[in-house]
């Protein structure tokens, strides 16, 4: 029997708090789950630093990847199977791409990518196409299969329907992470009727569309996405932890470039510092390694690095104030000057953080073909963009909401043992 068609003698199931069960029958999927590159995802949290705000948010990219696979499996097997627009030859390709779509994520990847200027998507490609266990499994299907999977994940595959199942404005990725993140953070915003949405999804030549009768379920999904963005993903306390994490990495890199002598050599970071990261180095890195360094860097002689690490490890985060860049950029310049005068390096301790700095997005109607919107399939067969039919979605997607915050170390500014007058001036400017 062909490896691609091989089924397990008994179906395997994973218990899952969001989808109840994740069903695996295909040998290829089971083998992929067992690879070391996929198992590595157990050691990378889905929500990075959010656990410092919502203590339940300890779930991993492993859980999420299985969840995306399960949603896609249900769509294909329960809804699309037998429909003329769906080619069942694409089933395995779609399932593999769903399972592996986040494979290149690293520990705290958002901060890491920002500081060391790389894209985890490139590592996903390298893992799928390189000398890895994942690649070996995929190659057993056919020599060209890893390339096909890589192209679907990169969204550069000609199979646009397959791509849209995994990555579009209503895809399995978002449907899983919204529900999963809501479950683990404990908030109630992420709820929507996924079963209903799956039932009204219809395959078309180059995209998944939604039957008009399912519009209200999709409205709920869009609302959930909106609420999760503001209540969880952009929570100001999580952002504070993210700011500190980013600054730790910046500081460590800066010290390395200045030939600082670390008490314990940061071996795992050297290739990141020198921009020569290999796939092997990358795969070795997980959150436990990063947190180990944060632990030992608390003892470093460099005051900034040790202070920032203590803050992260002990959750002594930066305070924040609302910040309007248009009205307050002159104030920021003055604050920068005062911070310098007080001996508090503003590069590390006065940080503006804004909504565009996040890897999450809102629903976009794609008015100028910037990206494909959600299309409703009308009874006549015509397609209509969601926000043109739904007042609720129109209200959310038409209204721009952005946000900026200014982060600073509250404890430093309250400490009156030195530079008392300057710190008072700073506190007055910050209105604290």
């Amino acid at each position, binding site marked *: 029997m062909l490896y691609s068609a091989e089924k397990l003698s008994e179906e395997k199931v994973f218990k899952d708090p969001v989808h109840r069960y994740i069903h695996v029958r295909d040998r290829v999927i089971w083998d992929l789950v067992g690879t070391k590159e996929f198992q590595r995802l157990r050691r990378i949290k889905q929500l990075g630093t959010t656990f410092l705000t919502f203590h339940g948010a300890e779930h991993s990219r492993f859980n999420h990847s299985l969840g995306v696979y399960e949603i896609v499996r249900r769509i294909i097997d329960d809804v699309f199977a037998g429909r003329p627009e769906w080619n069942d030859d694409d089933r395995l390709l779609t399932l593999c791409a769903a399972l592996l779509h986040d494979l290149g994520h690293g520990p705290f990847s958002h901060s890491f990518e920002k500081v060391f200027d790389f*894209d985890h*998507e490139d590592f996903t490609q390298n893992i799928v196409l390189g000398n890895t266990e994942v690649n070996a499994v995929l190659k057993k299907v056919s020599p060209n299969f890893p390339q096909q999977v890589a192209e679907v994940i*990169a*969204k*550069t595959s*000609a199979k*646009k329907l397959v791509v849209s199942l995994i990555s579009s404005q209503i895809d399995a990725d978002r449907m899983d992470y919204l529900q999963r993140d809501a479950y683990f953070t404990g908030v109630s915003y992420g709820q929507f009727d996924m079963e209903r949405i799956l039932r009204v999804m219809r395959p078309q030549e180059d*995209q998944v569309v939604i039957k008009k009768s399912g519009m209200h379920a999709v409205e709920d999904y869009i609302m959930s996405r909106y609420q999760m963005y503001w209540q969880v993903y952009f929570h100001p306390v999580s952002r504070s932890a993210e700011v500190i994490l980013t600054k730790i990495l910046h500081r460590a890199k800066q010290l390395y470039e200045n030939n600082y002598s670390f008490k314990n050599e940061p071996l795992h970071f050297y290739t990141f510092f020198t921009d020569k990261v290999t796939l092997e180095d990358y795969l070795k890195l997980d959150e436990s390694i990063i947190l180990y360094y944060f632990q030992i860097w608390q003892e470093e002689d460099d005051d900034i690095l040790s202070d920032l690490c203590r803050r992260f490890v002990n959750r002594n985060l930066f305070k924040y104030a609302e910040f*309007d*860049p*248009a009205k307050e*950029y*002159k104030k*920021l*310049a003055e604050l*920068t000057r005062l911070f310098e005068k007080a001996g508090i390096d503003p590069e590390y301790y*006065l*940080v*503006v*953080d*804004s*909504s*565009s*700095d*996040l890897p999450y*997005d809102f629903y*976009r109607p794609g*008015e*100028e*073909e*910037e*990206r*494909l919107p959600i299309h409703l399939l009308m009874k006549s067969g015509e397609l209509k963009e969601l926000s043109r039919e739904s007042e609720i979605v129109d209200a959310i997607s038409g209204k*721009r909401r*952005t946000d*900026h915050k200014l982060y600073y170390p509250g404890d430093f500014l309250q400490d009156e043992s030195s530079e008392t007058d300057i710190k008072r001036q700073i506190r007055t400017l910050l209105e604290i």
Partner: protein
Amino acid sequence: MTVLLKDHAKLMQAVLVSGEIIGRKKLQKMIYIAKKVSFPFHERFQFHFYGPYSEELTLRVEELCNMGFLNEIKEKKGGYFQYRYTLTDTGKEFLSLNEVEMPFLQDCLEDMNEQNARFLELVSTVLYFDNLSKEEVTDKVFTLKSSQRYTEEEIDQAYAYIAALKAKLN
């Protein structure tokens, strides 16, 4: 000034030197192309249905509009909406205080601004696949952009255009 505001300032500089940018799609492609030919824009792009697209750039532009640094005019054109972007006086004042050094940017962006969005979409797609051979890129354009019906001549023009842009930087 913090890094974050520097990234905003770079976009403002791009709009300033372009004068006016008509169309969100055009703005997206111009910044992508500029980034690919080595201008230091940090917005992350991914390949979407219509080519390279950056949600980060979209959000940053929205922020600049909300701040009052960018002026956005929405106008109806046929069956869809089109957006025009210019820098406001407040934006100009901000930029004058927070100078951004990007030599040759004006020359490159003015040139791109004179091209139409369809051609810039092709140029950005060619650049997205710059790790592939020209033959493979042509194949990608024909399969991924089949609805745009690009011709081989247009693909040649896109390559020539990229070479000309890069020459401006030397």
